[in-house]
């Protein structure tokens, strides 16, 4: 059955006050959280200045969900994210420099300029599905990866993420139902940031929680506080272990709030201000972990400052790398549709230049 989520996130009570990971891992986790937050803020600023082409989908405020669930995966486990979940992909191991090259349409981006922004993935390297817009289209694909693990007797797990609004779509049901029938090694994560574009939860589903839908599939469902990355991590770890042990899927609903508009163009005037203020003040997953680690003596203020300097330098390096990377060659636009033309198994042309 679904468990109830903590109404507030008091840092001192994070993860029940205990440390579920070794200290060095907790510090690495804080680094990823801060890097992704900083990336999100800086990219939005560049977008607003007109210096970033295409679109951006901010995941700010939801990093606890993204980092928490992904942290519990092994390298060989696969991740099936959406447009909102770039932080999860960075946590899984995507190289920030190549991610930024993708945003600027460059050849060194993971899709070689064939797609932009968070419509990214790195199956060959980090086992992440190249994001597609149609929601939640990766859910059925995750069933297939999990089926392959079961058929081949491999100890891997697939983990898929989608938003609260995506749960209204028929294939969300199809995928969970099918995975439950075959007890497949998959974990279903719903990043409930309370809004689907402008539509609030109440107009997407008529029940109090998404987690309780698990009952209808005969699988466990848990509801966790996305403001508490360690609580999310522990729930994901338990679900992943369960899947790996052959006991089938779990549904995890992680609750947070989307702090920014649906995409860069959306001022989100529909967002109630008190709600936003409450979440930014009381459910900030990045600050919560920082405060917790400071209170526990795992890091000092100086450590945090050094971490921030490192994050800023990483962003600058990524930015320089992206702008120095050439554009794809126009003549390559039609290559790579079919396997046999060899485009994806050879080095791409790099004469596209860097002026656009």
């Amino acid at each position, binding site marked *: 059955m679904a468990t109830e989520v903590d109404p507030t996130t008091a840092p001192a009570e994070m993860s029940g006050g205990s440390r579920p990971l070794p200290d060095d891992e907790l510090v690495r986790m804080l680094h990823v959280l801060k890097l992704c937050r900083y990336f999100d803020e800086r990219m939005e600023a560049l977008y607003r200045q007109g210096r970033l082409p295409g679109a951006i989908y901010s995941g700010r405020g939801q990093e606890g969900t993204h980092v928490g669930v992904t942290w519990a995966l092994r390298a060989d486990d*696969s991740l099936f994210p959406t447009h909102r979940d770039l932080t999860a992909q960075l946590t899984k191991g995507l190289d920030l420099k190549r991610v930024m090259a993708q945003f600027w349409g460059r050849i060194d981006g*993971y*899709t070689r300029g*064939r*797609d932009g922004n968070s*419509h990214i*993935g790195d*199956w*060959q390297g980090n086992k992440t*599905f*190249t994001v*597609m817009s*149609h929601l939640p*289209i990766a*859910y*059925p*694909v*995750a*069933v*297939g*990866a*999990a*089926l*392959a*693990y079961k*058929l*081949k007797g491999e100890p891997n797990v*697939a983990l898929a993420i989608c938003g609260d609004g995506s749960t209204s779509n*028929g*294939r969300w049901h*199809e*995928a969970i*139902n*099918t995975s439950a*029938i075959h007890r497949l090694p998959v974990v279903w994560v719903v990043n409930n940031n309370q809004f689907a574009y402008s539509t609030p939860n109440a107009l997407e589903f008529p029940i109090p929680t998404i987690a309780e839908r698990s009952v209808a599939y005969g699988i466990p469902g848990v509801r966790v506080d996305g403001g508490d990355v360690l609580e999310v991590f522990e729930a994901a770890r338990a679900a992943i272990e369960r899947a790996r042990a052959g006991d089938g899927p779990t549904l995890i609903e992680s609750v947070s709030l989307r702090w920014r508009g649906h995409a860069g163009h959306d001022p989100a005037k529909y967002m109630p201000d008190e709600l936003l203020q409450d979440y930014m003040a009381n459910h900030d997953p990045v600050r919560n972990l920082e405060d917790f680690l400071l209170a526990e003596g795992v890091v000092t203020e100086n450590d945090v400052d050094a971490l921030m300097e490192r994050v800023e330098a990483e962003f600058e390096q990524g930015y320089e790398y992206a702008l120095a990377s050439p554009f794809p060659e126009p003549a390559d636009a039609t290559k*790579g*549709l*079919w*396997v*046999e033309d060899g*485009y*994806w*198994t050879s080095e791409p042309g790099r004469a596209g230049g860097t002026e656009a």
Partner: protein
Amino acid sequence: MATTVKLDAGAAGHGAEPRGKRDDDGQATYLIAIAEALWEEMERDERVYMLGEDIGAYGGAFKVTEGFLDRFGSGRVIDTPIAEETIVGMAVGSAMEGLRPVAEFQYADFMSSGFDSIATVLGRYHYRSGVPLPVVLRGPSGGYVRASSFHSVNPEPWFAYGGGIKIVAPAFPADAKGLMKSAVRDDNPVLYLEHKWIYRRIKETVPTDPDFLVPIGEAAVKREGTDVSIITSGALVHKSLEAAENLAQRGVSAEVVDLRTIVPIDEETVLNSIAKTSRALVVSESYRFVGIGAEVGATIAEKAFEHLDAPVTRLSPPNMPVPFSPTLEDAFLPQVADIERAVEELSAW
């Protein structure tokens, strides 16, 4: 040479009776040929597995997979719920992990229920990621069996449009076998359309060599002629051959080109035929407006203009649901007499 067996296909073309075996002289129906190809490919490569509705103990709605469960087990012959988006998604995800899935659609009509997974994921994933998806989607398509609107569709234009998916539609048992084996061995997604009117009607000698392949992307001239080229596929190949035979008795020589593959289309064989006859009749069971016939006709008009002695002519049904009543379905779908009439009109130019 292929022989036509006058079998009553029963309601909606179903064949609840057993799939049957090859004759002693090596002749096999189209249905048997498809099953043989799948069987041999599953024997050859353990990464190949099947999934779909009622394909296990029941053996599939048309009995293509009869006996497979006993031989290959429930780990390689997987019954799914009625969830087409997820059937395709499962095929994709397992292909990403190195398997080679063959997914059965109970009818090709229900490919529309999995449309997004087919058009959006299957067709567009490799171009953006470089991850090969060796997936075969197969299912019975087409009309002429009194199956009406929801069991007679020719879905090839829906999926030809988006790109990224090869589409084959064989008309003969040997081609069906060789193309299925090529489809399973292809590293790209392949949509394999089995014409349900042909399943138990057409028989011929089918090769037994386990590596007998018919290449994807090659059309075949099934009857040589000099006056008019009939470019067609599926059930209409057989109707065109019958028309050509009748026309020959009246002194008109029609060549019949069986496309066999819809994507990528074999322009060379088509254009060579036009160069020879100077007249093109494109006969297609997919609808007239934006159908496969429209595309083939446009290609001929664009690339064989200097050879043409008459306007490129199309024969295909209107963009409407296929009706049930025998008089309506016969009026709606191209018939042998329609083909004969169109060829005679063309040869008068």
